[in-house]
């Protein structure tokens, strides 16, 4: 929280001066023609004034998309998606189309903001209320930009990176998630609208959590987010995406691609708090979240660590993975996935061991309540060359009530006799005696559930950056409201 408050102070300190990069100028809304076609792909690329190579890349991805079937391995009930029903590009909404004040926002969402302790100004932004230009994401970004610039760190939107740093984008985009990977990856590659780009130069340790303003920055990244993070030799970066508050969003279909590349001895820590609109208690509405996140530990002794807290979305389909190419490289995956009411989640990771002496660790905590279904799906694959490699996996599931489900689907492939793989899994119901004990000490049933579940998730939550850990704990409790008694 401290960092968030600091951000807001800094923004406020900019005063009321008209910020020259703020997009406060009235834009008429520009929309691509409805539906998905080569024409739409060209339209998006043209709107962004992209170079020819980028357009070609998108068009190729679109061709691939048309050939690939929808992935079907997940234990999810996904309604048929009609890709022609969506708009794939619209410029930032003009102020007049946005809600005028918080009075126009769903009171349920506001209640959650209050419980999370989100400052009023930030509530407005998260709800998409039209706010003045001083507080837009661009101006927040600039307060940090100089500090990062001085270190040679590049942190900008992917659109800007395509213009300003084409050599880096060209070299790395699609190098971790090939466009041919599966149809959602291909779709994203064809029509991605924006996202973040990070480059940490050799030997630099990024001094700030890139989360501190991303929380505000991230609001308009849109439904097809594309993010690329490169940590050059001996560098370090910690990045947090998303936000603990539920975000209002009319787009039902999300398909993000996030690629990480760690070179020799570099470390990337990537944390996510996902709390998109989950739909109502009857399962109406809510986001379909099809995310492809993959990191390549390309250099020796490099490390990539994913931490995720997934509490939102009607459907979550997500497997942040690590390709451990470099010798002695390390991959980690810490996950909390909470499903309540009629939410469905199929999430886990893939750890692909290629280099020698590589190690990976997977800690997954799935909590299912209401009528929700929660699946852990994970692959640990140890290549014949990856001698002396290790994996440790622990998957714990907690059930609240009698109508929900928890499933664990581990895939293990080992082609190397020198390596060790450990897998532990537990499934349990929330303990009535623990609840009674907490309530005898004065906690109401919801607080008691929140406390016990937070204890259950502790191993994962402690990997979140400090400023988000407290909010994430509150979020865990809020997500399970109404699940007991």
């Amino acid at each position, binding site marked *: 929280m401290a960092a968030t408050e600091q951000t807001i102070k800094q923004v406020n300190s900019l005063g009321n001066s008209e910020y020259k990069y703020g997009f406060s100028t009235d834009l008429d809304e520009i929309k691509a023609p409805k539906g998905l076609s080569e024409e739409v792909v060209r339209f998006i690329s043209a709107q962004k004034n992209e170079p020819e190579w980028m357009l070609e890349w998108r068009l190729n991805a679109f061709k691939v998309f048309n050939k690939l079937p929808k992935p079907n391995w997940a234990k999810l009930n996904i309604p048929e998606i009609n890709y022609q029903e969506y708009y794939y590009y619209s410029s930032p909404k003009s102020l007049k189309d946005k809600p005028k004040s918080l009075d126009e926002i769903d009171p349920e969402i506001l209640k959650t903001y209050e419980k999370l302790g989100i400052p009023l100004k930030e509530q407005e932004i998260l709800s998409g209320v039209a706010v003045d230009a001083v507080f837009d994401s661009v101006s927040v970004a600039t307060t940090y930009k100089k500090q990062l610039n001085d270190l040679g760190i590049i942190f900008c939107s992917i659109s800007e990176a395509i213009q300003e740093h084409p050599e880096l984008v060209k070299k790395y985009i699609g190098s971790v998630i090939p466009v041919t990977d599966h149809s959602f990856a291909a779709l994203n590659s064809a029509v991605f609208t924006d996202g973040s780009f990070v480059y940490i130069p050799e030997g630099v340790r990024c001094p700030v959590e890139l989360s501190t303003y991303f929380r505000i920055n991230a609001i308009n990244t849109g439904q097809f987010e594309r993010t690329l993070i490169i940590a050059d030799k001996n560098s370090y970066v910690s990045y947090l995406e998303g936000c603990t508050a539920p975000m209002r969003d009319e787009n039902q279909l999300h398909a993000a691609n996030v690629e990480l590349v760690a070179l020799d001895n570099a470390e990337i820590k990537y944390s996510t708090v996902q709390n998109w609109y989950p739909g109502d208690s009857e399962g109406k509405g809510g986001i379909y979240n099809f995310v492809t996140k993959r990191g390549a530990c390309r250099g020796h002794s490099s490390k990539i660590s994913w931490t995720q807290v997934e509490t939102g979305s009607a459907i979550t389909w997500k497997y942040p993975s690590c390709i451990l190419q470099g010798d002695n490289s390390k991959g980690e995956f810490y996950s909390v996935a909470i499903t309540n009411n009629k939410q469905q989640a199929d999430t886990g990771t893939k750890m692909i061991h290629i280099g020698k002496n590589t190690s990976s660790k997977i800690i997954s905590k799935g909590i299912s309540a209401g009528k929700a279904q929660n699946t852990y799906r994970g692959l640990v694959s140890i290549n014949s060359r990856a001698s002396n490699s290790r994996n440790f996996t622990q998957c714990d599931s907690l059930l609240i009530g009698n109508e929900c489900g928890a499933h664990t689907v581990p895939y293990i492939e080992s082609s190397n006799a020198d390596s060790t793989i450990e897998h532990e899994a537990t499934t349990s119901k929330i303990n009535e005696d623990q609840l009674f004990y907490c309530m005898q000490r*004065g906690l109401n049933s919801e607080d008691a559930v929140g406390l016990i579940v937070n204890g259950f998730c502790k191993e994962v939550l402690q990997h979140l950056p400090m400023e988000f850990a407290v909010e994430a704990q509150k979020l865990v409790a809020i997500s399970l409201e109404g699940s007991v008694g």
Partner: protein
Amino acid sequence: MLKINNLHVSIEGKQIIKGLSLSINKGEVHALMGPNGSGKSTLSYVLSGKEGYEIEEGTIEYNGKNLLDLEVDERANAGLFLAFQYPMEIPGVQTSFFLKTAINSKRKFLGMPEIDALEFAKLIKSQAEDLGIGSEMLKRDLNVNYSGGEKKKQEILQMSILKPDMAILDETDSGLDIDALRIVSEGVNKLRSEQNSFLVITHYQRLLNYIKPDFVHIIADGRIVKSGDFSLALELEEKGYEDISKTA
């Protein structure tokens, strides 16, 4: 303060408490003694509101209110505390965090703001020291890998900081060595006042040498068969339950 009248309780159709009556006034300490299976622990769970017990007959009045109408947490916040015979382990929840959450739950109930961090630290430190609970233990997960004695001390610590009006100690002496027994008893005695009451449930007279009760009741087969003062406990120790029950 607490008035139990003609209470009948069953679990899954089996009658455990069969017409128990007991009144406890402000400032009094009552001891309830009885053999295994006589209904002692059932009574403590019924009073604190645990699910799974059917009240077939009778009433329980607490501070003028119908206790049976209140939820578990409402009873707790109304000042009723149960020191558990078998305290629950809560993995991943630091002991001091649990204590703070419990205090704040009560404060919220009373319409007070959350406890200030410094005030909390002071409160815990002084109370924990008296019970021989080190700061290292407060950092551990609640009751996880605690010894039997540590768990019981933890119950008394929680009681000391929540300051209940009516405390039920369910076999708090079981599994305690003589030193721990003395420390735990001192904790209880320190809390005794004109304003609060205790119901001390135990098998043995031993505990009552430390926590001197005003009244002693003997329970057998779901009802109180004999009541008296401290001398009854001594008599019981001498003659055993069987004899006493017969003469009742």
